[in-house]
């Protein structure tokens, strides 16, 4: 007898096409603003044109008389509506100063875009038309635009706080505080740099949209929102408005990108729910792009003072970091915590002894609040250490690649307990760097550089590298507790095998482009031995998926995906009891493979999962005491973060006459452990790389001295187009994570973390022969040209 194994090879690791795509490609997918809601009133919000002003009066009478207008409210009119101020979930220190922040301002406005009044009307156009008829009298106050100016308290924004400093958060290594000063005193080399992380506008292509729909009888409310965090939003809306949580249902329909900007609880979500309750009709709101640029959170916004100490070989001996972080006018959901998420990464991928000293002060300005933006604290940290490493290499006169190799945590040191107490799960930085160097022809570019970058040349070649860790998979709940975060970091999953052997997976993750329906189906298919097309993934509706903590921080796979795999295993355990009972075998004698249980040594005694699912449903012949149906729920709290890593290498040519930077090649080698679907992994890296590259070359929220955003539209804020970015060459090493059963790590933010420093290192490298040692991001033609001029003026002095 010949036995052929006709079981399919695992679907895990295959480039399976996305099941999400047909609906998105044909226009059938529904985003929040696509929902048909008969009888809905439209909300429009009047926003402050001043960065800082006292509101003297609000006259809504003209607007109230405008055609189609149902109601007009000022901030004062709604003051009694709020059970609590807008939520801030991350008081990083016990004494953090956090001004009360309401959906509409009443006494004072603190940034351009701060809501002061709102209109409800029968159409969006009628509501927006009426905004022009609201008469607000302001007493303008001085704007606070600059972080160091904010710190000086020259103008105090929130009178009740008495200062613009919100908090100072320190990370020192207990028992080793003296080592830092000692290391600097004994260093062969020291680096001291000041870097600016310019403010960025996230610009998800779908602006925010909200619809609150009261349900018949009893006060239930359904809130539709273009959000990354339906579960968090449900809790926060319930708390802020005093609605019993079980009467709130939040649904995130198709969501058009987030990048952190939809990881928040926004004024308009609270306004729609409050006004839908008040008027007992659906209330909807959609953001215009011009509003989005001022009323949706911004990212980054830091001044970084970075100091490195190194011995004669360039081995790092100490890192000292002083940050000023821009909160904007108020705390949003996790504003204060963003720089803290980077606090553990300022020594990058290097084997640093205990000598680490980090301190961050968060300050208020009269600008749009900041919050999570792709990478959230970690791109900033990686930029600082990776730029500083290049400065150190330059000082030592050695190749920056060589300096990194001397400092990498070595493969055999993993799992590696860092000075912070965190354990890095697995890694091989040298392998990733060497692969990237080979793919980028690092040696070849250096040779070409020697012939091309000669005195008088106007097209200069540069090559830059960044090696990174992405501390992600947020997060072990106890670690979050130690950081004073208000929630946990677990994720929930339910796997339900239906009577006909089709499977429903209920996940607490909330995808908005990441392909969870495809990837989660693949995990279940692999585990249960079924076809991924027989799996339906249910998500982003708190009535269907009541437990979850949503999607951010590259957590969905290493936390949510792992929960699904574990729930599958629990289902298999239960199915095994039924199979053992029906096959009259001992559970220990059963093997499960390819979707069937088989008695060891008796291949004819077999029972497929399909048969067990039906038996579990009829419950006619189950083992004594076993509950009917085949379903398991798991809540997984990860024991560690996941630590993806990699090396990116960028090659540029800089035109010294125009300041134009031309990216000739971009190589990214990333290691996210085992890959569920390489197609999706690659897409995440491509998009991430371009977002980081955009910070390096194009993007910056530009404010004038009055605190007015000068590039508040997509016509003026340079989100790169296809013609502005290079093709990207990808490589991968695979170092599975030992901390979860899938061996996976996150990949959502890695591209963004590696790319900004790689690009900037390349630009500075190209210009190093002209004496340029640093320049502010973005490396726009103007900034490049200025850097060259100032270096040459310095040289001629």
């Amino acid at each position, binding site marked *: 007898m010949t036995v052929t194994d006709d079981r399919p090879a695992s679907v895990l690791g295959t480039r399976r*096409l*996305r099941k*999400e*795509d*047909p*609906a*998105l*490609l*044909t*226009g*059938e*997918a*529904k*985003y929040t*603003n*696509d929902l*048909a809601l008969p009888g809905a009133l439209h909300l429009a919000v009047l926003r402050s044109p001043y960065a800082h002003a006292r509101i003297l009066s609000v006259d809504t009478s003209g607007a109230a008389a405008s055609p189609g207008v149902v109601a007009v409210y000022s901030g004062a009119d709604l003051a009694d509506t709020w059970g609590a101020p807008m939520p801030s979930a991350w008081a990083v220190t016990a004494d953090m100063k956090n001004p009360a922040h309401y959906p509409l301002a009443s006494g004072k406005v603190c940034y351009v875009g701060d809501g002061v009044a709102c209109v409800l009307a029968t159409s969006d*156009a009628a509501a927006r038309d009426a905004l022009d008829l609201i008469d607000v009298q302001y007493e303008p106050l001085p704007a606070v635009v600059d972080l160091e100016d904010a710190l000086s308290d020259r103008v105090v924004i929130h009178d009740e706080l008495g200062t613009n400093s919100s908090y100072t958060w320190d990370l020192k290594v207990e028992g080793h505080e003296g080592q830092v000063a000692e290391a600097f005193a004994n260093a062969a080399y020291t680096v001291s740099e000041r870097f600016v992380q310019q403010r960025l506008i996230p*610009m*998800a*292509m*779908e*602006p925010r949209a909200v619809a609150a729909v009261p349900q018949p009888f009893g006060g239930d409310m359904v809130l539709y929102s273009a959000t990354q965090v339906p579960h968090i939003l449900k809790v926060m809306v319930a708390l802020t408005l005093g609605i019993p949580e079980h009467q709130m249902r939040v649904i995130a329909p*198709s*969501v*058009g*990108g987030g*990048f952190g900007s939809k990881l928040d609880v926004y004024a308009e979500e609270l306004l729609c729910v409050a006004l839908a309750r008040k008027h007992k009709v659906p209330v909807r709101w959609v953001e*215009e*792009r*011009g509003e989005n640029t001022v009323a949706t959170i911004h990212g980054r916004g830091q001044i970084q003072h970075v100091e490195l100490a190194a011995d004669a070989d360039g081995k790092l001996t100490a890192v000292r970091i002083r940050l000023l972080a821009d909160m904007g006018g108020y705390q949003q959901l996790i504003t204060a915590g963003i720089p803290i998420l980077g606090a553990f990464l300022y020594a990058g991928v290097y084997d640093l002894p205990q000598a680490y000293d980090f301190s961050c002060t968060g300050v208020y300005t009269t600008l749009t609040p900041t919050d999570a933006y792709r990478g959230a604290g970690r791109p900033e940290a990686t930029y600082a250490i990776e730029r500083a490493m290049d400065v150190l290499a330059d000082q030592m006169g050695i190749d920056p690649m060589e300096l990194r190799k001397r400092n990498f945590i070595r493969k055999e040191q993993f799992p590696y307990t860092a000075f912070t107490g965190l354990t890095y799960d697995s890694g091989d930085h040298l392998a990733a760097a060497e692969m990237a160097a080979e793919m980028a022809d690092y040696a070849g570019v250096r040779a070409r550089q020697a012939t091309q970058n000669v005195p008088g040349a106007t097209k200069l070649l540069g090559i830059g590298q960044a090696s990174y860790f992405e501390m992600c998979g947020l997060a072990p709940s106890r670690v979050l507790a130690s950081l004073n975060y208000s929630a946990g970091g677990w994720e929930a999953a339910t796997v339900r095998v239906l009577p006909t052997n089709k499977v429903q997976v209920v996940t607490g993750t909330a995808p*908005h*482009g*990441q*392909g969870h329906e495809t990837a989660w189906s693949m995990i279940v298919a692999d585990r249960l031995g079924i076809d991924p097309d027989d799996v339906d993934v249910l998500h982003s509706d708190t009535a269907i998926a009541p437990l979850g903590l949503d999607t951010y921080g590259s957590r969905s796979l290493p936390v949510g995906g792992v929960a699904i795999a574990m729930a599958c295993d629990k289902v298999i355990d239960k199915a095994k009891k039924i199979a053992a009972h029906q096959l009259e075998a001992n559970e220990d004698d059963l093997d499960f493979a390819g979707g069937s249980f088989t008695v060891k040594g008796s291949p004819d005694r077999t029972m497929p999962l399909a048969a067990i699912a039906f038996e579990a449903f009829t419950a006619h012949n189950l083992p004594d005491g076993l509950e009917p149906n085949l379903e398991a729920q798991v809540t997984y709290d990860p024991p560690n973060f996941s630590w993806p890593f990699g090396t990116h290498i960028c090659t540029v040519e800089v035109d010294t006459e125009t300041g134009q930077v031309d990216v000739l090649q971009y190589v990214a080698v990333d290691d996210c452990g085992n890959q569920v679907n390489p*197609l*999706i992994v*690659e*897409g995440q890296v*491509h*998009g*991430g*790389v*371009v*977002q980081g590259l955009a910070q390096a070359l194009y993007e910056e929220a530009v404010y004038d001295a009055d605190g007015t955003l000068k590039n508040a*539209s*997509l*016509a003026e804020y340079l*989100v790169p*187009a*296809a*013609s*502005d*970015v290079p*093709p*990207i060459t990808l490589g991968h090493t695979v170092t599975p994570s030992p901390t979860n059963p899938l061996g996976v790590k996150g990949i959502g933010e890695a*591209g963004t973390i590696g790319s900004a420093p790689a690009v900037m290192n390349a630009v500075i490298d190209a210009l190093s022969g002209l004496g340029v040692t640093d320049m502010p991001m973005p490396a726009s033609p103007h900034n490049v040209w200025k850097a060259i001029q100032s270096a040459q003026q310095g040289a001629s002095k």
Partner: protein
Amino acid sequence: MKISVTVNGTVHESDVEPRTLLVHYVREVLGLTGTNIGCDTSSCGACSLHVNGEAVKSCTMLAVQADGQSITTIEGLAVDGEMHPMQQAFMENHGLQCGYCTPGMVMAATSLLKENPNPTEEEVRIGLEGNLCRCTGYHNIVKSVLAAAAK
């Protein structure tokens, strides 16, 4: 104002306010919400559709200007439930993530190939520069369009 517009092969007689943009007409009057709105400055291209076979940002046109014209939206691209080769190419090459820019991108890309059936990679990048995407870094969008051209 009364207008008569052929949309995805069906003639629609409508009475619209003169200020109504074409994008609002197809979304709100006809309920064709596949055409998305991403900006208010005609920068992002999310609302691209075809007017007489050529890609147009539908926020740059008034509905009344479409009187007597033939419009195709993303909903009209598939034939008998079979996706257009460009839609298929986007699926096969992972040319979309969140999908919000996708309808506009697909409409712009089909129009591009009509003008230039065998574009180079650079021509695709330049040809699509009026359509912004925040998810893909364009890498797989360009790949999708080149794959559709090769079909």
